[in-house]
């Protein structure tokens, strides 16, 4: 019963070159995706995320190994059969403009419609549901060229959903969106997965978003392997930090984010708490100070006052800006 919906068996992906040679980007992948699971495929740009996605969606042949969907290898399925199991949202630029949201989502019914592509009662129901489930009811009568980037992504997800797939695979769906829109799309996908049992794989290089929403991460390493696990496990055993070790960044295991690796310009002691304390620490670290909490001599002491003002070495400061200015003059 707990069979994976999508699985790979010793899969290697890459490019077939001339004279029968091939260059693999990712090797020996044994991935599995459960029903109703929301997975983020996370890796640096150029790590091979798109190549893996093209292989998982049968747009590119694997170098070795195989991909199965509900225990059937992809290459055993006809194109129409596969389309009923798997749908995609790609980064391809859309040139079409004179199409309403409803018409676009209707295109997702292709695998089910007749030679002329006419929709029956059930098809219309599915299209309406797909629009509703992606909070896109209001986009039904809008033209594609009148939609914002975020709305376009939602309607493309609705189109993919109208295909009634077991698995939906999305290539960088949040790439060109602003932060609120990114959160919106990610939580929409997560909700779809958890509420409808759809299995979702989404590639991204947005670490915060992935940690904050994915059930599991597929983490692409430099050496062409992929580590799988819950975001928390991957943080705790240091594998997440290891992924990006080449870069000049340091993974902050406490906060689950990256910091540029720089030499501290000095030490300060901070006695503060609450929201103001948190953001003061943020400001000090951003300015390059190493912030200590314990009582230690030989460094400026920053104290929080009752009225949310600050005091640095007996010098009162009204806000963070003044604290930083005073510290800079010492």
């Amino acid at each position, binding site marked *: 019963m707990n069979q994976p919906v999508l699985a790979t068996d010793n899969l290697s992906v890459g490019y077939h070159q001339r004279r029968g040679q091939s260059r693999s980007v990712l090797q020996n992948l044994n991935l599995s995706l459960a029903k109703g699971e929301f997975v983020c495929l996370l890796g640096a740009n150029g790590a091979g995320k798109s190549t893996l996605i093209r292989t998982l969606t049968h*747009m590119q042949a694997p170098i070795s190994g195989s991909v199965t969907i509900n225990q059937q290898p992809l290459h055993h399925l006809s194109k*129409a059969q596969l389309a009923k199991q798997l749908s995609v949202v*790609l980064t391809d630029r859309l*040139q079409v*403009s004179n199409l309403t949201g409803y*018409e676009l989502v209707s295109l997702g019914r292709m695998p089910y419609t007749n030679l002329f592509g006419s929709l029956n009662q*059930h098809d219309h129901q599915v299209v309406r549901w797909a629009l509703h489930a992606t909070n896109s009811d209001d986009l039904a009568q809008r033209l594609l*060229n009148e939609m914002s980037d975020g709305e376009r992504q939602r309607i493309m997800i609705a189109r993919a959903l109208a295909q009634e797939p077991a698995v939906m695979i999305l290539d960088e769906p949040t790439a060109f969106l602003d932060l609120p829109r990114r959160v919106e799309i990610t939580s929409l996908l997560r909700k779809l997965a958890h509420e409808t049992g759809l299995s979702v794989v989404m590639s991204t290089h947005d670490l915060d978003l992935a940690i904050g929403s994915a059930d599991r991460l597929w983490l692409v390493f430099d050496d062409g392997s992929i580590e799988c696990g819950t975001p928390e496990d991957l943080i705790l055993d240091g594998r997440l930090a290891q992924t990006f070790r080449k870069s000049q960044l340091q993974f902050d295991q406490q906060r689950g984010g990256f910091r540029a690796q720089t030499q501290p310009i000095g030490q300060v002691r901070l006695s503060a708490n609450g929201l103001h304390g948190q953001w003061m620490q943020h400001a000090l670290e951003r300015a390059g100070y190493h912030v200590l909490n314990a009582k230690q001599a030989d460094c400026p002491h920053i104290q929080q006052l009752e009225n949310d003002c600050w005091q640095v070495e007996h010098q009162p400061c009204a806000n963070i800006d003044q604290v930083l200015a005073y510290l800079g003059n010492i």
Partner: protein
Amino acid sequence: MQKQQLRLAQPEPKPAEASPPKSRFANHIAALQTQPSQAASRWQPSSKRRNIWLFGLLIVLSMVGVVLSLTWSSVDIPLSSVADILLGRPTAQPAWRTIIVDIRLPRIITAILVGMALGLAGLQLQTIFRNPLAEPFTLGVSSGASLGVALVILLAPSSGISFAALGSNVFGNLGTVGSAIVGGLSVLGIMMVVASRVRDMTIILLLGVILSAMTYALVTVLIFFANESQTRAFVEWQLGSFTRVRWGELRYFVPVTVIGALIACLTTKHLNALLLGEHYAQSSGINVQRARWIIMGSASIMAGTVVAYAGPIGFVGIAIPHLARGLFKTSDHRVLVPATILTGIPFALACGILAEVPSSSLQLPIDAATSLFGAPVAAWVLLRMKRGAWM
């Protein structure tokens, strides 16, 4: 014990409703149906009524075009006499019957076929090449077809074959049409292979220009070695004119074009799938490679036949589909295919009327008239393309 077994053997109780075809998210979809906000009227496209009006208007325009083409020409024939002739009643001037039946009717049918075929071929090529300026003429399909025709007219073994004689010659007709179709499809095949490697639409259009130049050079070489009567027949053909086709040619022109158009109608779903690009088409279960060849075949049949009988006609293939898109404000090929046919017919009839200067024996070459109409539309398309969304 036995009773229990009996009960087990009974078939499962059927669900209360006959369930629709197996649906993965049936529960969720069913739950949505009960919500009051899902009234069907909310989803009804408001454009449906408008489309019906537009189709009606275009049909009326086509009829007006037909009537004008019948009456307004170098010899003025009153409408009542035209009606008499068409209904088989005797008329005052027997010569008028010849003009109407043997000259004007074939010309009208040719114009209708040209508008329909070039419009549809342009629509198909624009969608599969994802290029707003793609059409038989710009992609070099017409040149390829011309080369095919040139091979037949200029290299025909019996020097007696001239285009005028083709009407009565089954092999001449099918030979010309067939070689035009093969010539057009060969060029399209080359363009498709290039387009799969080069994404830049400007380069593809330039390549069409280059291929046209090459085929034109080949035709010139062929003319150089042909005799005078063959050359004259070819040059006359090359200028193109709706007036040349007679009933004898129409016996082949009509069925072949209609076959091409029928194939085009059968490819609407594939064209719609290709709206989002080949990857999305593939992911929705379409065999993209096969769909492309069928679409290119249909476009070549229509464009090749038109080139064989009416000569290479430019810009109509760009203008008509874009006019249809602008009128119907949709990219859905289930609307666009009939819309293109119905826009193409009055468009080509108007070009035909323009080509025939009334009350004089002057006759403009038809491609001059179509370019006068088509070129501004093509320019308008170019200027509108700034945001990259045009389909």
